[in-house]
């Protein structure tokens, strides 16, 4: 059994890279913030959350909603807001990306906070985003039947 669920801090971020990262962050400010509500966590999981930033959740959950989603999908902490994960679910369904929700997202590396995700992808600190999902329903079925096989 492999337990690879902590984002690695390697290679360490060099001062030069930090400067370059700031430049890329400007791009994130202009594009990712207005479109996806990006919070600059530096460890982008937008592709597994149907392109809605999950880090706007007051608990910053990366693996699905807490138990407090209210009637009509309201957030328990700020009742005037919609639960981010409620929106992610319906968007995933609409975009046929439900299989992406089964992914276990790794524990956040706080060293990467405020760095550019693309640079981290390039440096192989985090995995590359998956833009296209084909045969979503089939994939969900495979995920579920895989478990049954493993049991036997």
């Amino acid at each position, binding site marked *: 059994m492999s*337990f690879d669920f*902590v984002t690695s801090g390697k290679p360490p971020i060099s001062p030069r890279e930090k400067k370059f990262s700031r430049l890329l962050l400007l791009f994130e400010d202009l594009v990712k913030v207005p479109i996806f509500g990006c919070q600059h966590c530096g460890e982008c999981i937008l592709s597994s959350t149907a392109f809605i930033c999950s880090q706007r959740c*007051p*608990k910053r959950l990366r693996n*699905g*909603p807490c138990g407090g989603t209210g009637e009509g999908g309201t957030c328990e*902490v700020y009742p005037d807001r919609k639960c981010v994960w409620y929106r992610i*679910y319906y968007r995933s369904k609409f975009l046929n990306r439900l299989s992406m*929700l089964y992914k276990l997202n790794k524990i956040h590396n706080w060293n990467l906070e405020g760095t550019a995700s693309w640079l981290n992808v390039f440096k192989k600190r985090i995995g590359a985003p998956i833009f296209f999902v084909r045969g979503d329903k089939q994939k969900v079925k495979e995920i*579920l039947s895989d478990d049954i096989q493993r049991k036997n």
Partner: protein
Amino acid sequence: MTFKEKIESGKFIICGEICPPKSCDGDILREKSKYFKGVVDAVNITDNQTALVRLSSLASAKILLEEGVEPIMQMTCRDRNRIAIQSDLLGAAALGIQNLLCLTGDHQKFGDQPEAKGVFDLDSIQLLATVAKMNSGFLLSEQEMKKVPDFLIGAAANPFAEPLEMRLIRLHKKVKAGARFIQTQPVFDMDLFAHWMEKVVEMGLHEKCAILAGVMPVKSVKALYHMKKEVPGVKINDEYIRRLENASDPKEEGKNVAVEMIRTLRTIHGVRGIHLMPVMWESITPVIVQEAGLGTI
């Protein structure tokens, strides 16, 4: 037989719940433990529930262990980062605590100190995976431990919040991360619960973990109103409210409803046990267990 062995043996499980006091008076816990000894299989110890400061769940669990009641220590991610969590877990293992319930934790806004910093370094699923990793002999830093803990890990599930499919995905992830038993939010609407359970059975999750249905006996209809209004993610059947409204003795009626509920829950396919959680009414637990015909252990 330990709680772990009971879960593996397929026996019908009964869990209780104790809320530690808001002071350093351990005798309150010793007093309360009498209601549970020989009545239930294990008792949940809440970890600063609804973000109110209480006697720590680690210390409370140790006290219960001394009293001969098997504790299920709750561990939330609100108050600790990954370093504190792993350290507390090692401490718990050293004290002989074997059962854990991994939760994300209520937001600090619901407590009496909303200005506190919420940590949420991990979420419940990542916490489950962390404990599973520790069970296999490693800390998160990949450092190997000389003595390996052996926790039975559980998680919570809410069958009533929308959307249902997202709840099932999350349950699936929790089981995959290592949860061996699942305690649900209190059931106040049997139809909704039965529907959720059907889906769980369809996914085959009931075979990989023991599903323990939550039952919350209430003293008065006021408590129900409060639950409906203030506690998010709880759905209450109108008939339930009506029954308590019309009852001449709401305490008695609250108990009767809980007993009936347990009888119905036992008949639902896939339900492996009951998690009784009367809030500040621990004394009712043995009465309900006896009247529901669950007998002594």
